[in-house]
């Protein structure tokens, strides 16, 4: 929709420091990709871009990997099975048992799927050829956050009862009664509305900013490349920064996937037991 209105910006490759044109600073239009395939379903036109293809490929890769790892589980695991078990134990012991406790074991598959889905979606940002994180498109974090919202609201209503869930949330015990009138709205808005919003924005903003940063340094490395002292030094520095920021992004991508999963577990824990 937006890409039809805005012109697709192409970074000019012949634009250099001394060729008279200014720095072609990348803007938000680098996130609006040309459709690769256009599908018409039920009279509605769907543009399939690189983003959707990476998303599908990522899902297939994760499923393939874990199917292979756990296809024939042996008592003494092979290499692939060891990696798969390590990943499983990381989610079960590192997140689920740590945050929810023993009764969180039935949510491990959910947390496991979320972690690896978000991680591979983020990881596309630094994989050569792909080089755009799927989660830097706001719709994907929003979709994930909405799913998490549905899960913890449902669990809260199921485990604490439809009225109890909200009263437990709004009225933590041991507070002077007049204070309740002031703080209850904050608790309600915080838990029901702000939670999914911050969950989605935290993931999206990190990936968006990371991709923009990498693009700025990459474009600068090309733009500054010219036979002059400033050109050579600037280009080399920009290139070095691109390499350093790529390593930094690798860290951020794993960290954001971990935080997203951890917060999902925290919200589930809050729904299973009232916070007191």
């Amino acid at each position, binding site marked *: 929709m937006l890409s039809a209105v805005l012109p697709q910006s192409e970074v000019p490759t012949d634009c250099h420091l001394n060729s008279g044109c200014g720095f072609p600073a990348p803007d938000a239009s680098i996130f609006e990709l040309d459709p690769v395939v256009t599908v018409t379903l039920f009279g509605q036109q769907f543009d399939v871009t690189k983003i959707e293809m990476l998303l599908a490929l990522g899902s297939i890769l994760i499923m393939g990997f874990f199917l292979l790892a756990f296809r024939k589980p042996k008592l003494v695991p092979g290499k692939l099975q060891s990696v798969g078990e390590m990943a499983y134990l990381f989610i079960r012991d590192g997140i689920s048992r*740590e*945050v*929810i*406790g*023993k*009764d969180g074991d039935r949510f491990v598959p959910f947390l496991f799927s979320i972690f690896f889905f978000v991680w591979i979606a983020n990881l596309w940002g630094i994989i050569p050829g792909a080089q755009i994180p799927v989660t830097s498109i706001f719709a994907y974090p929003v979709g994930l956050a909405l799913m998490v919202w549905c899960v913890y609201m449902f669990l809260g209503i199921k485990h604490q009862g439809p009225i109890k869930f909200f009263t437990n949330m709004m009225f*933590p015990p*041991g*507070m002077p009664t007049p*204070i309740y009138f*002031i*703080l209850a*709205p*904050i*608790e309600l*808005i*915080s*838990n029901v*509305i*702000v*939670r999914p919003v*911050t969950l989605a924005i935290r993931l999206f903003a990190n990936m968006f900013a990371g991709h923009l940063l990498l693009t700025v340094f990459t474009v600068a490395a090309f733009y500054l490349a010219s036979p002059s002292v400033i050109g050579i030094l600037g280009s080399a520095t920009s290139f070095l920064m691109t390499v350093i920021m790529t390593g930094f992004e690798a860290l951020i991508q794993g960290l954001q996937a971990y935080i997203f999963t*951890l*917060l999902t577990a*925290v919200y589930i*824990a*809050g729904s299973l037991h009232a*916070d*007191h």
Partner: protein
Amino acid sequence: MNDTTETPAGTATSNAAWSVVNHMIAGILVYGGLGWMVGLWLGYPQQGLAVGVVCGLAASTYLVVFRLRQLDGPPAASADDVERSA
């Protein structure tokens, strides 16, 4: 460390700590919005918004401190009570 409970000790505290940002934002939203509406009614929307945001921040800070202090231990064993009884 309390080994008898199913969840490790400190879990509740770290879970509550994760919601600090959410509480802060919610406080600003609720009381900023309320202040703005009251200000609109009285004819000073900007001043109302400013006062509301500050009040909301104060309220949510109180809420966060209250929640985290409560998780430290049961209120009967808090430092104030020990001092008072001594």
